Structure formats: C-alpha cells, structure tokens
C-alpha cells in the first residue's frame, strides 16, 4: 500500500479499476472486432437477406419465410435442393466409411512398433491434402480420361481392362468417383489425427493387455478403439462440416452444373449456381442467401446432434 501511496495514484481510481475490469475488454477487443466484422455480421446479414426477395429493378422487399417455402415446395427449386441434399448425404457417407475407415487403418499401420520408413509413408499419404484442389481435379480428370487417360492402360496391364468405364461421365458413377477422388485427397487428415491419438496411448497399456491374454484384434477392439473414440468423434464432425461445405473439387472437375445431369450436384455447387448464376441461370442474392441459410441450418443440426448426443458420452482419457 505504501508503494501505491508513494507513486501518487489516487486511492479512488484504484478502487474503480478493480470494479470494472477494463483489461479484459482490451484483450478481447481485437478478436471480437475481427470476428464480428468478418464472421458474425456477414452471417446475420445473410440470414436477413434470405427473408427478402428482389425484382428486375433491384428493389428488395420483405417476404418472411417465403423464399424457404419456394425452396422446399416449388418444383423447379425443390427438385434441385433435394437432389443436392441427397447427393451431399451420399458424399458424406462415402467419406465417413471409406475416408475415415482407411484413415483409421493407415494410422494403425503407421503406429506399428517396428515400422521402418514410417515418416516417409506419413509424408506421402499426407501430401495430396496439401495440393490445390484445382490441381487434384485436373490430374484425376487426366488419369480417368477415357480417350487418353492412363487409368485404362493401367487396368489393362493387370488384366482388368474390361472393368474400365468413363466413370466421371456416367450419371451412375460420377458422384462415387468424385467422392473417391476427395477421399484420396483428404485421407491424410483422419489418418494424422487418429495416428496422434494412437501413439498417445502408452505402450505399457498395450503390454498389459497382451499379458492379460488379449490378441492383437482384442487389444484393438477392447483397448485402443475405446481410447481413440473421442478422436473418432472429432474426425466425424470435421468430415461432416467439411463435406456439407464442399464445393471446390466438384466445381474443378465438373463445373457449377455438376453434371452429368446434376448427378454430382451438392449443396455447395447448388448454392453457387443460385447465388452467382451460371450460364443461362440468373444469379439471385436473396435465393442464394436462402440456400446458404438452409445449409447453415443443416450443418447446425448435425453439429448439435453431435455435441449433445455424442460428445457428452465420450470421455477424454488421461494416462
């Protein structure tokens, strides 16, 4: 106290400062300002815009939830919307099963105790994730091209040439093919996350299970898998959010029309066409905002189901 008195600070202002913690505001302000300007404001404005309609003159008027009614019931809009949503769900399901399944398998292999060259495999498998999506799309279009792509030649070399088809061009296979290209690109992310969780499990625990009589499969099923469940939960929700926000790969390979005949159309490409317009279709900021808000709601529902239904039951383990 004598120090304060000596430095000449009035006692009253000291008391005031302790009542209102200005320093907390000061530290929060930069993040709050940036986040508000670039994230919260646009989000709220998008939702506001989805409640308006515009005409040819550019005038806007309030229509309430009219745009959503149009989106879900008008045949022109509803067909496209439900088609995009269904395709998006398939896109997500393929990622969950194939990408995360293979990611888990690769992580298990990488965490083998006596693996030589582990870091080389790790880097190679993660490499596609760091490449530009445009390049990935271009490379795979070249590889799968029925006229001069190397895929057919490679399949013929191992006697499976008859299986080859123009996979990106057929309505029945295009979505699967695009999904698998995306899986190939992003498999490194679940692999790395799961790998990190696996090597975090102490060796003693696995040794203890081995001494207890558990074989390799039982060690995985009863010890390792339960201990990495929280990570699998995080991987799932990341996959969900990324898949329902996906756009770039399909745009790079198939363009915004997501052909053939909208068979690879997902919410992202649907939103792009609606908002910006494409070829003969006029862009509509208000309908675009409506689609964007619908996407927000869908993702929000998924995340909420995860947060309240799944994550609360998962227990993070410390060793």
């Amino acid at each position, binding site marked *: 106290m004598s120090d304060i008195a000596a430095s000449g600070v009035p006692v009253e202002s000291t008391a005031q400062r302790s009542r209102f913690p200005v320093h907390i505001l000061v530290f929060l302000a930069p993040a709050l300002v940036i986040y508000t300007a670039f994230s919260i404001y646009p989000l709220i404005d998008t939702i506001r815009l989805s409640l308006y309609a515009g005409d040819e003159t550019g005038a806007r008027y309030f229509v309430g939830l009219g745009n959503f009614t149009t989106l879900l019931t008008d045949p022109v809009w509803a067909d496209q919307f439900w088609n995009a949503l269904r395709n998006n769900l398939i896109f997500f399901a393929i990622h969950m099963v194939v990408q995360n399944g293979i990611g888990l398998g690769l992580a298990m292999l990488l965490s083998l105790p006596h693996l030589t060259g582990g870091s080389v495999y790790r880097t190679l498998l993660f490499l596609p994730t760091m490449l530009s999506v445009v390049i990935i799309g271009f490379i795979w279009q070249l590889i799968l091209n029925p006229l001069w792509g190397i895929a057919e030649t490679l399949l013929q070399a191992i006697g499976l040439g008859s299986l080859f088809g123009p996979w990106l061009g057929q309505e029945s296979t295009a979505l699967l093919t695009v999904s698998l290209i995306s899986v190939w690109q992003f498999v490194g992310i679940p692999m790395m996350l799961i790998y990190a969780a696996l090597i975090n499990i102490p060796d*003693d625990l696995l040794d*203890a299970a081995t*001494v*207890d*009589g558990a074989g390799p499969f039982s060690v995985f099923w*009863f010890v390792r898998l339960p*201990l990495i469940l929280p990570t699998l939960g995080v991987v799932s929700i990341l996959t969900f959010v990324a898949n329902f926000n996906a756009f770039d790969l399909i745009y790079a390979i198939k363009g915004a029309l997501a052909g053939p005949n909208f068979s690879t159309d997902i919410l992202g490409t649907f939103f792009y066409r609606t908002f910006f317009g494409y070829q003969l279709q006029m862009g509509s900021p208000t309908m675009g905002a409506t689609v964007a808000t619908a996407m927000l709601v869908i993702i929000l529902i998924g995340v909420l189901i995860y947060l309240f239904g799944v994550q609360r039951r998962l227990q993070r383990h*410390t*060793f």
Partner: protein
Amino acid sequence: MADVSLHSIAKSFGTAEILRDINLTVDDGEFVVFVGPSGCGKSTLLRIIAGLEPVSGGEIRIGGRRVNEMPPAERKIAMVFQSYALYPHMSVYKNMAFGLKFAKTNKAEVDRRVRQAAEILKLSALLDRKPRELSGGQRQRVAIGRAIVREPSVFLFDEPLSNLDAALRVNTRLEIAKLHRDLGATMIYVTHDQVEAMTLASKIVVLNHGRIEQVGAPLELYRHPRNLFVAGFIGSPRMNFIKGQVLGLDDTGATIAFAGAQAEVRTRLGALKAGDEVTIGVRPEHMAERAAETIALQGRIDAVERLGEASFVYMRLDGGEDVIVRAPGDEPAVPGERFTAYLSRETLYVFDAAGQAVIPTSRSML
C-alpha cells in the same frame, strides 16, 4: 506355482547388446529382486520373462516348460507395471476382470475372484470407480489386483513403487511382502532402489551392463560383495573407496597402506602380491568405531547431514579421497573443521586392481 530358470539368455537391439549370458534359477515361491542402475537391462530381462520381448539367444523355462515361443498369456505370469497401466475407460472391476475374459472363465468364477482380490487389497468399495477417480496408491493396488485374479504361477513387478510418494512406498512395500507370504507365489521384482531390494528380496540379483554381477540373499550381498560394483551399489550411503597399495604379505593376509595409514588385512591366499594397487572399501557405518584396535584417518569436513539418529559427515581425507562417515546423531562436527574417522581392520574390504574382492569367503562380520 512354478520355478523360473534362465539359460544363457542374450538380448540385443540391433548392434547394442543389452543382456549377455544370463544364467539364473528362481525357485518356486521365492521373491527375487533384480536391481541395478538404469540401463543395466533389468527391465528388459523382466519383459523377456513376461514374453513381451523375444530373446536373441538362450532358453527360458517356467515350471519346467520351455516358454520361449509362448505368448505372454500362456506363460501363467502376471505383470504389474511401473505406470500401473490400468485401462482408463474401464471400472476397477472390469480392469481386474479383463484378463479372465480371455481365459474363458465363467461369470460366477470371475465375480468370485475379483471380489476376493478386492477384499485382500481393500478395494471392495471402489469396484465401480474409474482409474482416474483413484489415488496413486489405490491405482497401484488395482494393478496388483489385476495380477492376483489371474492366479498366475509367477508375479512380475516392474518398478511398481517408483510413482508413489515416500510414505506410501514404505506402506505398499510392506503390503507386497505380506502378499508374498500369503500367496506363496514366485515373484520377480525389478527396482533400481537398493532399499526395496534389501527389504523385499529373499534373493537379490545385481545387474550391471547386461551382466549378473552377483546373486545372493540381501545380507550376503551386504556382507560379502563380490566386487567393487556390488559393494558400491548395496548399502546406503554407498561404501567408501580408498586407494591403497600392498606393502607386504604373510600367512594370514596382507599389509596395506592407504590414506596415510597401514593395516594388516586378511585376504585370500595368493590373491595379491607386494606392490599391487588395491582399493580399500569401508562402509560409512564402520568409520566411527572408537574401539581399541582402530585406524585413525584425518581429514577436513565438507558438509554434515543431521538425520537425528545419525549424522553423515562428508569429509575429505588428507590423501585427497572423499568419504562419508556415519557418526552418532549428537556428533558435534562442523564443516570446515578437522575430523578423524576411526576404522576397525575387521570391517575393511579389499578389492584388487580388477575390482574383485579378495577377502576370505569364510569371513564373518559383526
């Protein structure tokens, strides 16, 4: 119940030789402690017995059966790990029952064994808890319980007390000793703490650089260390070593000059010759013996540690050697002052230039 025998066990990781030519027999019901400094290979040896590490050479027999090729579960062993290695997602009950799941034990029997083990270890009230809700000592007991329920022939302990605080360590040490008496099972215990080794073992195996230095009962190792390493490792504070030289020999022993003094010490015949460089060993507790036939060594005090029942006087002899003297608790020693240590020739150890003890094996002490 079973005995364990190791025949010329060798282990190397790549070019690094961890263990070489380990021969050892652990009798049925014996409590054997592997002790040695870190990196001496004691944990590796335990993991080899457990079946968690393959050997590079040699044979392991448990209960007379060769087990080299057997997985851990078939060796009828149970292991307690330094980190306890409890499954964090399972309750105490499930942790203990986990091993029985694979042994195809029926539910009623599993329940009986788990509850019995919990009873022995005072864990009955904690069976539904998760490991994170337990204290260190309780976790330790769960780890031991997990071993007990499997009713193994051989218990393996890998430094089980090193994560506990000092008071709990003493307690758990006594509990493990009691457990051994009650179960009568063969136990092999790894530690770097020679106090644990001395208090628990019926037989101590001192390891250093992947070799067995000496095997014997605790007091045997304390009284008759075979070489400098064992002499320095067993006993706390460690034995003092003073350089000396053989002056002459007669029928019963050698006259040795060290630190400005001379002593006639009984040695094995033919082990030494005049002029040999030797090392004199004397324990701190034998350096304050003001009896008739004593040797006095002068020096200056560096530091004094007062423990109450004793005072450890760290002194530098005039010959330049640092020694520790265990003096009575009321010793009025002050750092910086002169001090005299009194040795009896009966308590001296003599080691030749190669570090091997040259005392007669029949020697009795104290």
